[in-house]
């Protein structure tokens, strides 16, 4: 059997692809939530890479979660948490 068609390799690649896709959805959702809700950014730049999340933003994220009801109850955060729970399991 050709190496690339081995079921375990396919399984591994599929899972890996799936994981990366799910995690990129989580990252992008959180970025959008943070910039739009916590930082009140109009979110008009061309791509998601223009909205980086740095370690310096971590405190801002935490504060937004603790004090901003819109942030903590937002659907984007709920999506993030549900998808993350799927990976985290």
């Amino acid at each position, binding site marked *: 059997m050709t190496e690339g068609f081995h079921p375990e390799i396919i399984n591994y690649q599929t899972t890996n692809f799936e994981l990366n896709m799910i*995690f990129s959805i989580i990252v992008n959702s959180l970025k959008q939530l943070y910039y739009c809700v916590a930082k009140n950014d109009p979110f008009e730049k061309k791509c998601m890479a223009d909205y980086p999340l740095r370690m310096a933003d971590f405190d801002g994220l935490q504060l937004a979660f603790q004090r901003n009801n819109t942030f903590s109850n937002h659907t984007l955060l709920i999506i993030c948490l549900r998808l993350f729970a799927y990976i985290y399991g």
Partner: protein
Amino acid sequence: MAEIKSKYEIFCNELESMLKYFEKNQTISNKSISEDDLVTYKFISQILVKVEAVRTDNSKLVNFYFPIAKKCYYLSDDTKRKFLKDVDRESLDSKLSGLYSEKMYFNQEMDFNQSRFNNRKGIFTIFGSGTFLFLEVTCFVLTITNNLMLLMDDESMIELFGLIELALSVVAIVFFLNLNYPLVRQLNRFRYETTAAVESYYNKIQLDVFQSFLYQKNVWVFLYHIFCVSAGLYGYTAIITLDVFSAINLFDTMQFIIKSVVMHIGQLLSTLALAGLIMFSFSYLVTMYFVDEISGDTCSSFSSCFFYIMDQAFSNGQGIAGLTSATVESLGNKYYLLFLLNITFFLLINTVLLNIILAILVDTFSALRQKSDQFGNK
């Protein structure tokens, strides 16, 4: 399914180890992971809680995930520390029941803190739980400075530093009254109402003034600073030296030493009382039969002899033998009675009772240290 899950685990472990690497080196070594990923992972994993539950005896563990409630962030560090210190950790059941019995007080505190924080964001953003520690350390540094100046016989700056210390202590107490006191009073009243049957004026004063204010760690240490500095500046300068005892509040080991004395104070006092009684009867025997063998006129009466024996025989480690200069030649057969008295006193007081006191102190101290180490490890 098990295989897929393990890959999820690898994925999370990869992010976790990279997060640790990033926090240490401020760089990312794996090109497939970005800083965005790390921030997201850190944030989400911190706000997501996993609870494992078994529904029936034969069923498998089921994971439940939910975000941490926002108000959980409003539980104060002091309360967490106090709970961790006091909760019974003998078994899982005792830990759970401890947490369960405290849950309504935690809820009360979190609700209260949340509403106060939202009303007075500015004050609480600036003055967090570290404010008191900062003020306490500053006051302690000023105390040490003042005492060093006393040591060097230079009293020129003592008044200035003393006044600064006084002002900082007053500020700390004002902060406490403004920021912490309302919560502490409310929690104490709440605890009292749920446990006590009778409500009286005296109990309210006891709760509001003593338990909620004077007995609080962040209050009495600053009141102590105020007392020592005021009395030192405007009364006796020597009282400033007593201010260094405030260090006890800052260092755990010093607190263990104090606790090891106070914790079994009843046993210690009983042992000392027994020692006192033995010395009383021995000093009577010495006054009656061997008063001439003690040099000088220190044993002119029974009371002076009693206090002399208490002072000398107890502290010099030699017993009554250290006070007398008798020999077989000088006393004859009476010497053997004195010898018996000496040896009995030495065995009872200097060997048995003093070692019992030492053993009580060392045992209590090591138990406290052991408990503290266990808590640190768990």
